C-alpha cells in the first residue's frame, strides 16, 4: 500500500537529491570519507526510500529487477576488468597502472595535507565507480526480492 501523499511527494523530491549526493560520495572516495561501497549504499537507500513511500506494485514498472541485475554484473565486470587490464600491459592483477601516469585520473597528488584534486588516484576512482554501481544494484535487489515475497503473500 502507498503511504500518504506527503511522504510520497517528499520521496519524489529526495530521490534525485540522495542520488546525486550518493554519486558525490562515490566520486570523491579518494578525497573525502566515502567511496564506492558507502556511496552505493546511500544510493540504494534512496531506491528503498522510493519503494517504501510508494508501493511494490507501483514501483515495479519503473524500477525493474532486470536493470539492477545488469547493473550489478556490469559493475563487477568493470571492477574485475580494471584489475585485469593491468595484466594486459604486463603488470600483476590489480596494479594501479593509471596513478601518476597523466591519463584519466592520472594526476599526481601533492604530498601532505591539501584540498585535493578530483583527477587523481589512478584506478581508484574507476574501481569506486564500479563498486558503487554494483552495490547500488545489489542492495536494491535484496530489498526488492524480500518485498516480492510480501507482495506474493498479499495476493
Amino acid at each position, binding site marked *: 500500500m502507498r*503511504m*500518504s501523499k*506527503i*511522504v510520497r511527494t*517528499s520521496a519524489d523530491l*529526495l530521490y534525485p537529491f540522495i542520488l546525486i549526493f550518493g554519486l558525490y560520495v562515490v566520486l570523491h572516495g579518494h578525497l573525502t570519507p566515502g567511496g564506492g561501497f558507502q556511496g552505493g549504499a546511500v544510493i540504494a537507500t534512496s531506491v528503498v526510500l522510493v519503494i517504501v513511500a510508494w508501493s511494490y506494485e507501483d514501483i515495479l514498472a519503473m524500477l525493474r529487477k532486470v536493470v539492477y541485475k545488469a547493473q550489478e554484473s556490469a559493475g563487477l565486470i568493470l571492477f574485475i576488468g580494471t584489475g585485469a587490464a593491468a595484466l594486459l600491459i604486463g603488470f600483476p592483477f590489480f596494479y594501479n597502472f593509471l596513478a601518476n601516469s597523466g591519463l584519466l585520473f592520472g594526476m599526481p597528488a601533492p604530498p601532505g595535507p591539501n*584540498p585535493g584534486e578530483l583527477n587523481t588516484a589512478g584506478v581508484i576512482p574507476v574501481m569506486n565507480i564500479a563498486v558503487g554501481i554494483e552495490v547500488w544494484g545489489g542492495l536494491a535487489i535484496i530489498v526488492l526480492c524480500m518485498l516480492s515475497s510480501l507482495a506474493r503473500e498479499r495476493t
Partner: protein
Amino acid sequence: MITDTIVLICLVIGILFNALGVLGLLRFPDVYTRMHATTKATTFGSVFTALAVIIYGGSLYYGTADPQYITLIIHTIIAALALAFTNAVSSHALARAAHKSGIKPAQAVVDRLGEARR
C-alpha cells in the same frame, strides 16, 4: 571574541531546546504530544547547533579566506536542511501510522480523524 559569544549562545540555545525535546519525550502522556516535543524542539535545537557551526565557520572564513570553510558552511547547511525536511515528514508518517494502528490520542477533546475514518 564576539563570534565566540554568539556561537556559545547559539550552542546553549540548541542544547536547551534539545534537552526540552528529550524531556518532553519522557514526560508527555501519549505518542502525539511526545511528537510535538521531539519534532519541534529537537529540530529547532539541532538547527541551532548547526547554526553555531555555520557562524563559527563564517568567522574562520572571514579570518583566513580559505575555501575549505565554504565547504564546511555549505555542508552544515545541507545537513541542517535535510534534518528539518526529513524530521517533519517522518513525524507525520509516524503520527499517521500511530493513528492507523489504533492509538487514541490521550486526553483528547476531539478526534475528527477517528470520526472520519469510522
